[in-house]
């Protein structure tokens, strides 16, 4: 579980996150939603320790990362998996080497054990016979799946995803969403997903934080969204005619 309390973060006197408090639960897909520029990515980078908040606390199972030393933070990061928006696969390595990388750096496994684990993770994300291909030779959806395989290869306790299905076709996007939800339940991870994809919100939103102008504006589940009275949330989620129709039919 990750507990965020009263986080404030500003850049050059512009406040990006303004007093955000929220609990991200273990074994659930926790979604952070909001318009572009609302502060989602900055919040994610604060959770990862890539940005230090101006004030507030971020506790990973009781351990506040804001006050951790660099060494302690690096140690904690070994329990963290991250799926970046563009995948962030290493261009100079093939698929197998990309997934193998965290194991090579930090595990004491034998080469055979490592390769076995890599193949298991690639199979788990429905990728086979792509081990020797380079990132430039695979599709966007495959890159995301390789990134997910790399993120889970070390059995992380926490999984972070920044816009995991941006730039993907609707079918592949749903596959990625479902895969992330399955993995979250299977491994009991605390998964935090940044998204503004409404399909994702309705499909896998088990615990949702809606941010507007850097503030915690609403929280709940995907089911709560349909009946939420928060006007900002309604304007954001049901901005398209399609979703307005779906909402009307659901109610």
């Amino acid at each position, binding site marked *: 579980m990750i507990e965020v309390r009263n986080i404030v973060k500003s850049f050059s006197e512009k406040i990006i996150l303004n007093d955000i408090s929220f609990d991200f639960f273990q074994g659930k897909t926790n979604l952070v939603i909001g318009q572009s520029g609302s502060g989602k990515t900055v919040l994610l980078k604060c959770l990862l320790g*890539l940005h230090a908040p101006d004030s507030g606390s971020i506790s990973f199972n009781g351990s506040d990362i804001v006050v951790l030393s660099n060494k302690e933070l690096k140690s904690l990061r070994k329990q*963290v998996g*991250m799926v*970046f928006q*563009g995948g962030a696969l*290493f*261009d100079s390595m093939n698929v197998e080497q990309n997934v193998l990388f965290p194991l*090579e750096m*930090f595990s004491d496994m034998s080469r055979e054990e490592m390769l076995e684990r890599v193949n298991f993770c690639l199979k788990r994300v429905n990728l086979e016979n792509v081990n020797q291909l380079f990132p430039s030779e695979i599709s966007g959806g495959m890159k995301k799946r390789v990134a997910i395989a790399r993120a889970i290869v070390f059995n992380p306790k926490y999984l972070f995803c920044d816009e995991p299905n941006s730039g993907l076709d609707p079918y592949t996007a749903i596959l990625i969403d479902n895969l992330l939800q399955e993995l979250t339940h299977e491994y009991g991870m605390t998964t935090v997903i940044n998204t503004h994809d409404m399909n994702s919100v309705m499909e896998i939103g088990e615990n949702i934080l809606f941010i507007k102008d850097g503030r915690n504006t609403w929280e709940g589940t995907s089911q709560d969204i349909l009946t939420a009275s928060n006007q900002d949330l309604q304007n954001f989620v049901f901005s398209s005619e399609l979703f307005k129709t779906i909402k009307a039919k659901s109610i």
Partner: protein
Amino acid sequence: MGLIASFGKYLLFIAEVFRKPERRSIMYKLVIKEVFELGLKSVLFVVFVSLFVGAVVTLQTAANMEGSWMPRYLIGFATRDAVILEFSPTIISLLLAGKIGSNIASSLGTMRVTEQIDALEVMGVNSETYLVRPKIFALMFFNPLLISLSMFVGVIGGWAAGVLTGECTSSEFIEGIQYDFIPFKAVYALIKTLIFAFIIASVSSFHGFHTQGGALEVGQSSTRAVVYSSVLIIVANYILTHLLLG
């Protein structure tokens, strides 16, 4: 950013680069890979440039000595000193700052803007040590070999040009390159090469590593890397010459 702030940031960056690596065995592999990528791939370029510049130095020296009382073996002498003291260590290093420096800055800059460096950080890897240290070690190991090769090829180029154009005989040229040879001059050149290799690798890495933005900024970082490396090489050349030969 002010010059002093940039310099401070550079020093902190270098301190991070020389932190203990996560896996020493991986570091060795990376150094070997960088020797191939940054060093071996520059050999042909250096040989080609050195051959022709050595030849041009010989022809210019010969042209300046036309009709004078000076003995022809001085053509070999002048070529040797020009190549060993200045051309190979400094001019080749400047050319390598362009070739290798832009390569380093653009590859690290691309890694930064595509979040590959963030990915390393999130995994708990010290990205400066992992990405930059192998480049510095590889260049400091390989550049002295490359510059030694350049000196040899430059003198060969000078000899070929002198003999083929009839400006001097083979024996005159060889006598010239042996005349009044002071081994410390070669040591001085190699010391310069080591310092220049460090400048090229660290300054280019610094600019690439701190790229912010997109493709345009990667290009700008690459340009800055070449400009700053070249300027620092020129300044360091003066200081080292003053300290070692002054």
